């Protein structure tokens, strides 16, 4: 067979890589919301960890650092500060190297 017509068969791991990439972007986008959801579920499960709902005998640091709210804050920071740029870079990488 002429080598001008015949092409090589894509390697299995390369095909898997191509198929997996959309899931990477989705996974990155889900990390923040899942963290926020974890904080919300925790707040519902243990409302006494939210000082605003259970004010008896609490000090300034109890108002500043409420554990479930800290979890939500981390999730928000990841969602709005880290994830968008990461997804952009991942898509740029796909556009730059679509065969990979």
């Amino acid at each position: 067979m002429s080598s001008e017509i015949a092409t090589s068969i894509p390697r299995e791991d390369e095909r898997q890589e191509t198929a997996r990439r959309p899931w990477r972007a989705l996974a990155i986008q889900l990390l923040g919301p899942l963290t926020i959801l974890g904080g919300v579920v925790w707040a519902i499960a243990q409302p006494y960890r939210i000082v605003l709902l259970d004010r008896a005998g609490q000090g300034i640091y109890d108002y500043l650092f409420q554990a479930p709210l800290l979890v939500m804050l981390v999730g928000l920071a990841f969602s709005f500060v880290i994830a968008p740029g990461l997804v952009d870079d991942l898509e740029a990488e796909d556009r730059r190297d679509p065969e990979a």
Partner: protein
Amino acid sequence: MIPKPESVHWIAAAICLLIGLLLVAEAIVGPEVFRRRAWRAYSFPAVVVLSSVLLWAITIFSTFSTMHLLAHALWAQAALVAGAVELAIVRGKLRSPSWALVPAFALLVSGMAFLVHEPNPWLYSRSAFLHHAIGWMLVVVSIFPLGQALRPGRVVWRAGFALTFVLLAVLLFADRDVAPIFGRFGTGGP
């Protein structure tokens, strides 16, 4: 105006959770994409070095117990060394995968410090339970950076190292100054 230990531990937990999410993200997209933006590449070593500075502050102010003082000083030192090595790796000054032995050693020593400075058994109190749980967890997970040093390139090492910080965050968030081992004092509830 010095915050309660549990408040400080929750801040540490939030920092650990952020580090964990960053490392999970890096494990998903790969180091090449993750380090495309400089601020993102430097965020992990910077947060580790910052954690070390905060741990030194705790070492200075938390002087009620010599064992706690020594343990926090050791964690601060371990974080500083590990952060410095990570900084040099991102900067390109260190290239050998063997440098992952440094965070492995830092995790191992930190875990041993947790275990050594807790004199009570597992079910003595919430604090004792968490010291044992975190201590053994850190000793076991030191295998991830060790694996990265011996057999580099495998995703399982990066993913395991990332999830280490998420698990550490969960355990630190569970800390209370006054509480039974499982549950809450005074209410009989969970």
